[in-house]
């Protein structure tokens, strides 16, 4: 049956448009038609053929229906770009709307309504008026839709010309399809316009119900959906609606069935007759179950809806839990939803069967599904008291499988079961403790720590177990740390032995002094004050009885639930969100002309149209950036801008003290810094005093000035700066570049580079002391540089460094326009570091642009192409990188993690080459710079060609250096 139209896609590229133009003007009809087909083919693949508008419109007047349809299609797509020329089409439209063939009359109104040009709509009114009263129902049903289209463009016109009334008249049309479309049109006008366009009255209700029996399945959906908004006057009214709608439950079309269920549920409230409602529910159950025999996508929608229905009316499917058992080949999204409904329908009666199924699922291959199955068992235990023990037994069996993620998930849910039924199932704790080593996920570890703390008095070696966790305390995720703090306190309160005291001392010290997590710090302080002021109060607070939990994972608020039930079968019911949360339709259609014109990635080769004119991004751009390309080191411009600091104390003063434009808080807290060390000791001392008392009874003295101390320690570095803990470094996987060798630094060796942490730039600096004595009082300052970078505080957050010791610190950086070095940008960063013992050391570092890329630096994809085009080709620089890109999603993720965001990615057809467009925003001064990047590479082969465009071409070398850093190789 193939008509071989594929040939129209084969194009000659150059001069194509010109060729089209000539063919369109040809006198030969078949040649003309061929040409129109080629134009449409070009349009299909996304090429801009709007410039052919006049020529195509000239082909409109024809009695070849196929050709006419093609021209109309073209008009729909491009009229908006050529509003003035669109007028040319009006005459033919008007003429066609009076054609003897109803197909053409309908085609004319249908197309005219799709052309969203104001000038045309004026001419649309008369034909529309005629067509609404056409003899042929096919034309009338099309005209009914056209009224809604017109309303979308010009609502006043619709009201002025009385189209609304004409539409209402169509509700009484003899043809069911016309009625259905009129209903759809009125419902939409009502919804969009907010006007009282459409109110179902008792008379129109009757008409709708009558049409329901006769119109197509889709018409039935329109009518049922609008009936769902109708509130019955009384019980009798409601009953009669239900009576007429119930037969629809037998329809083979799932959408009809779901919409019918929606109407019935809505009317049930008005009926109030218990017996009748019960009968209705019984009637709805089988059709709901049958929805699960449909296509998997439909099953998904059905399951999302059923989950709403059973929440409101659990009895409706209470005997049907088996139909929700998962089949091996169900898609995962169906399985997940089925699981959810199985949990909802689990009852004392069927729980054994359900548990057996869950257990079966827990051995499947899909990890997410397995986890959910394990969790489901826990949720059943929480909601079904009598089944809790059986659930626990199943979980214990699963723990025996020793599959890591199964065990961890089981531990998490067992914690919930303990919460729900305190002091009932401690016997399983022993089993849990056996699998401690398997736990490597934060949630599971946190759960286990909670269990140990909660049942510390029953676990003989609770202190040992906790100690095991505490060894890795600083590396633990926040959730586990919080649990550890609480568990340590519980243990101490329950078993106030020396070991527990030591432990609590250790934990609280770290949590109050060395952490940058305010939650953890605050919690630790609260416990500490509680313990030191009134241990009895601490006991009352920490060991208080907890409120009973319930399974609320899926419970929706009653008001939301009723909204969603009224929206059954719609997107809202799938998302479980109210319509206003996602509906984004504005009444006026978006301007599409602007998108058509640049036609961003129209080309097969995937090159932005503009740069292909310049001969491909890679070749063109080396221009202005080239001189700077090889200069990430100390280049000439830097030397000119700021002379290299000569040695001498004066300059040190300049660098460190002189009217430094560093942020003010640094000064405010500078004195506090020196006191820091002894403060820390005080804290420890206080804590020691607390614990020595043995029983947590009266404690001498209040906690020593606890509050102010840690802030003094931490504040200058506000949010970032993970505090150094002993010698364990922040996550510095790769060795840092050496900046100052020990022989030049009089025994102090420094290595480091710029990095980004917690949304800001930091200078990651590794100190190592090979001098004879301890070093302390570290301070740091930068010279003027191209990015206005300076340490946020001069004091380095680092305690005394003993001989042979080393530590790595993140020095938070700030940017200040006053520190901006003049001239073109370079990567040079001149740094001075001072210590009390060794005085000042100078060295150069490279400013890595990668550390200055902002989170959220992505552009709207639509904005990318205009931005790219807005920059002249001369603003482009290119380089090749030695990296090998693997699969694109991973590479893209890697880049995104470094705040370089993918805008588009394609494979270049016909070659193994791939191309990606990316963007990033660099925090530069005086204003951030948006970087637009193009990467081209051959799949699997080493080497990536990169091109960058931005307002600041002088950043290009640093961009490439940053990319090398990100992509490696």
């Amino acid at each position: 049956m193939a008509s071989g139209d594929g040939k129209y896609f084969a194009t000659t590229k150059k001069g194509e448009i010109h060729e089209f133009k000539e063919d369109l003007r040809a006198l030969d009809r078949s040649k003309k038609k061929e040409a129109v087909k080629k134009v449409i083919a070009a349009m299909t693949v996304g090429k801009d053929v709007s410039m052919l508008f006049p020529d195509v419109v000239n082909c409109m007047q024809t009695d070849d229906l196929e050709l006419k349809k093609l021209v109309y299609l073209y008009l729909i797509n491009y009229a908006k770009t050529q509003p003035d020329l669109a007028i040319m089409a009006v005459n033919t439209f008007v003429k066609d709307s009076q054609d003897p063939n109803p197909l053409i009359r309908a085609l004319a109104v249908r197309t005219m309504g799709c052309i969203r040009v104001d000038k045309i709509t004026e001419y649309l009114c008369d034909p529309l008026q005629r067509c609404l009263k056409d003899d042929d129902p096919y034309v009338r049903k099309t005209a009914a839709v056209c009224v809604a289209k017109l309303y979308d463009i010009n609502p006043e016109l619709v009201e002025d010309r009385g189209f609304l009334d004409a539409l209402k008249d169509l509700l009484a049309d003899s043809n069911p399809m016309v009625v259905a479309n009129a209903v759809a049109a009125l419902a939409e006008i009502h919804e969009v316009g907010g006007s009282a366009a459409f109110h179902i009255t008792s008379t129109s209700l009757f008409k709708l119900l009558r049409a329901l029996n006769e119109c197509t399945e889709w018409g039935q959906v329109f009518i049922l959906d609008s009936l769902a908004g109708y509130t019955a006057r009384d019980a009798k009214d409601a009953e009669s609606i239900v009576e007429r709608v119930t037969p629809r439950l037998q329809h083979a079309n799932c959408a009809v069935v779901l919409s019918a269920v929606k109407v019935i549920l809505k009317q049930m409230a008005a009926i109030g007759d218990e017996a009748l409602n019960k009968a209705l529910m019984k009637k709805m159950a089988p059709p709901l179950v049958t929805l699960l025999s449909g296509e998997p996508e439909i099953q998904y929608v059905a399951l999302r809806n059923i989950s709403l229905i059973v929440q409101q009316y659990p009895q409706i499917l209470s005997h049907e839990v088996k139909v929700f058992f998962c089949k091996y080949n169900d898609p995962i999204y169906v399985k997940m939803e089925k699981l959810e409904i199985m949990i909802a329908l689990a009852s004392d009666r069927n729980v054994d069967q359900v548990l057996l199924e869950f257990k079966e699922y827990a051995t499947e291959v899909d990890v997410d599904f397995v986890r959910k199955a394990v969790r489901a068992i826990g949720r059943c235990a929480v909601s079904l008291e009598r089944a809790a023990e059986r659930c626990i037994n199943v979980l214990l069996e699963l723990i025996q499988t020793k599959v890591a993620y199964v065990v961890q998930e089981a531990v998490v849910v067992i914690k919930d079961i303990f919460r729900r039924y305190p002091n009932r199932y401690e016997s399983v704790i022993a089993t849990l403790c056996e699998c401690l080593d398997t736990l490597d996920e934060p949630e599971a570890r946190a759960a286990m720590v909670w269990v140990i703390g909660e049942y510390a008095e029953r676990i003989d070696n609770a202190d040992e177990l906790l100690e095991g966790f505490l060894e890795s305390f600083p590396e633990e995720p926040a959730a586990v740390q919080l649990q550890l703090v609480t568990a340590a306190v519980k243990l101490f309160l329950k078993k106030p032995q020396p070991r527990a005291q030591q432990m609590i001392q250790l934990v609280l010290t770290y949590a109050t002094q060395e952490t940058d997590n305010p939650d953890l710090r605050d919690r630790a302080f609260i416990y500490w004050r509680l313990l030191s002021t009134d241990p009895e109060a601490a006991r009352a607070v920490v060991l208080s009885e907890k409120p009973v939990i319930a399974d609320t994972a899926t419970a929706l608020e009653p008001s939301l639930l009723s909204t969603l039930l009224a929206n059954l079968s719609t997107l809202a019911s799938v998302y479980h969100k109210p319509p206003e949360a996602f509906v984004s339709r504005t009444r006026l259609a978006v301007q599409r002309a602007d998108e058509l014109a640049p036609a961003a990635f129209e080309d097969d080769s995937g090159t932005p149209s503009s740069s292909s004119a310049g001969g491909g991004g890679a070749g063109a751009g080396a221009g202005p950036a080239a001189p700077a390309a090889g200069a990430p080191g100390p280049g000439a411009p830097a030397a000119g801008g700021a002379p290299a600091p000569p040695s001498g104390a004066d300059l040190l003063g300049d660098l460190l003290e002189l009217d430094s434009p560093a942020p003010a808080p640094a000064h405010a807290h500078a004195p506090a810094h020196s006191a820091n060390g002894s403060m820390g000791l005080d804290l420890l001392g206080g804590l020691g005093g607390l614990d020595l008392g043995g029983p947590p009874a009266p404690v001498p003295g209040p906690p020593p000035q606890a509050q102010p101390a840690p802030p003094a320690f931490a504040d200058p570095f506000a949010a970032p700066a993970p505090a150094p803990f002993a010698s364990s470094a922040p996550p510095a996987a790769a060795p840092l570049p050496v900046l100052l060798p020990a022989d030049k630094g009089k025994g102090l060796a420094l290595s480091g580079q710029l990095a980004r942490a917690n949304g800001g730039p930091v200078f990651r600096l590794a100190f190592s002391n090979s001098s004879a004595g301890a070093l302390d009082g570290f301070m740091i300052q930068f010279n003027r540089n191209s990015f206005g970078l300076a340490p946020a505080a001069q004091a380095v957050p680092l305690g005394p460094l003993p001989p042979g010791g080393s530590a790595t610190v993140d020095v938070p950086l700030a940017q200040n326009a006053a520190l901006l070095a003049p001239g073109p940008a370079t990567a040079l960063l001149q740094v001075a570091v001072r210590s009390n013992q060794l005085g000042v050391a100078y060295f150069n570092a490279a400013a890595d642009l990668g550390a200055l890329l902002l989170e959220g630096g992505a552009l709207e994809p639509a904005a990318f192409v205009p931005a790219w085009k807005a920059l002249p080709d001369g603003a482009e620089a290119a380089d090749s990188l030695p990296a090998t890109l693997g699969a694109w999603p991973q590479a893209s993720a890697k880049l995104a993690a470094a705040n370089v965001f993918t805008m588009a990615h394609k494979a270049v057809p016909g070659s193994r080459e791939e191309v990606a467009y990316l963007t990033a925003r660099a925090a530069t001064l005086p204003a951030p710079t948006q970087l637009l990047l193009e990467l081209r590479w051959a799949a699997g082969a080493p080497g990536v060609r990169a091109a960058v465009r931005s307002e600041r071409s002088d950043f290009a070398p640093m961009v490439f250096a940053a990319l090398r850093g990100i992509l490696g190789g």
Partner: protein
Amino acid sequence: MSVSAVFVLDLKGRVLLSRDYRGDVSLKVAEKFIIKLNELEEAGKVTPVFYDDGVSYCYITHSNLVLMTVSRTNANAAAMLLFLHKLRDILTTYFGELEEESLRDNFVIAYELLDEVMDFGWVQFTEAKILAEYIKTDAYKMEVQARPPMAVTNAVSWRSEGIRYKKNEVFLDVVESVNLLVNSNGTVVRSEVAGALKMRTFLSGMPECKLGLNDKVLFDAQGRGGKNKSVDLEDMKFHQCVRLARFENDRTISFIPPDGAFDLMTYRLNQNVRPLIWVECIVEKHSRSRTEYLVKARSQFKERSSANNVEILLPLPPDAIAPTVRASQGAAVYVPEKEALIWKIKSFPGGREFLLRCKFGLPSVAAEEEAHGRMPPMRVSFEIPYFTVSGIQVRYLKVIEKSGYQALPWVRYITTGGEYEIRMQ
């Protein structure tokens, strides 16, 4: 409803065909769609309906194509997805096979169809047969200008007038497929019969048909429930040609059928039936590297019936080495790409039992993840002609047409294995 646009994409997200119905989304959403879809896939959170940046996407896949609707409103999700399936069916009917190439070769027709099946984002008409009457694939047949067939707007939207056959015949197949789920401990977890009345009509004019079944509800209502054998059909679903209101009233199945093949009715039966073919597999692990399956297959229906084309799929471990098989009946082959042994028995009479032994090796070094991930279930497919599980009977099929011809109804019964899963131990 209100769909903003319909797209057909290839799996990379390239637009092969699109139709913008409302002008409220940019055609670039196709790119966003594929990016988001890949994201969801990586996170293992793919669903057929999802939301991204103000736009809702519903999609289905077909061979290497994605059919998708885009909407900005709270549209009817079930209707959109069903529409996509219908659209797929229409395009398949038109092009024989729906794939990238056939779509390109017929893009003009495809555009015409998209214009007809939906208007302003509202589904209008999806009967492929009727559409074919005024949207033709062959351009040369368009000498006479097409007109919209009456059926498009008629109450009988599925049948055109003026159909003529020399011989008026109706074929009615009653097909019951048995869905079964047996747990690894041998208990039947779920059994269900999904039945369908499949019709092929070759009838002239506008025939009125009436179908009589041994429907329990009807028999009870007529007070003759006692002696006659009747069946209680759980959820009957009818083709849109059946007058539902009439069925609701007096359980009469009356209709004007479409021309050609269609499913008149489907039904479900939740009764617990004895599994028609029972398969047991005993796994004997002789050593780490040598395993043996002992499989017993038993037919549990009457001896005068016989199951044809029985196929039993026995999953093997993915790393199984050189399986050797001996079967007391039929033939078994190892199909490595399915990681299974397929045992085929051409004819399996009722009340018989056949055996199969399969030995295979495993690599002596256990794979890392061997400990978990259970085996897929065994699956069985079969056909038992002249037999239904439910006992449903077509009592009569009356065809009345105003020209008064006699139509011959042919009725066949068959039971097949549907989703017939027996979990391995």
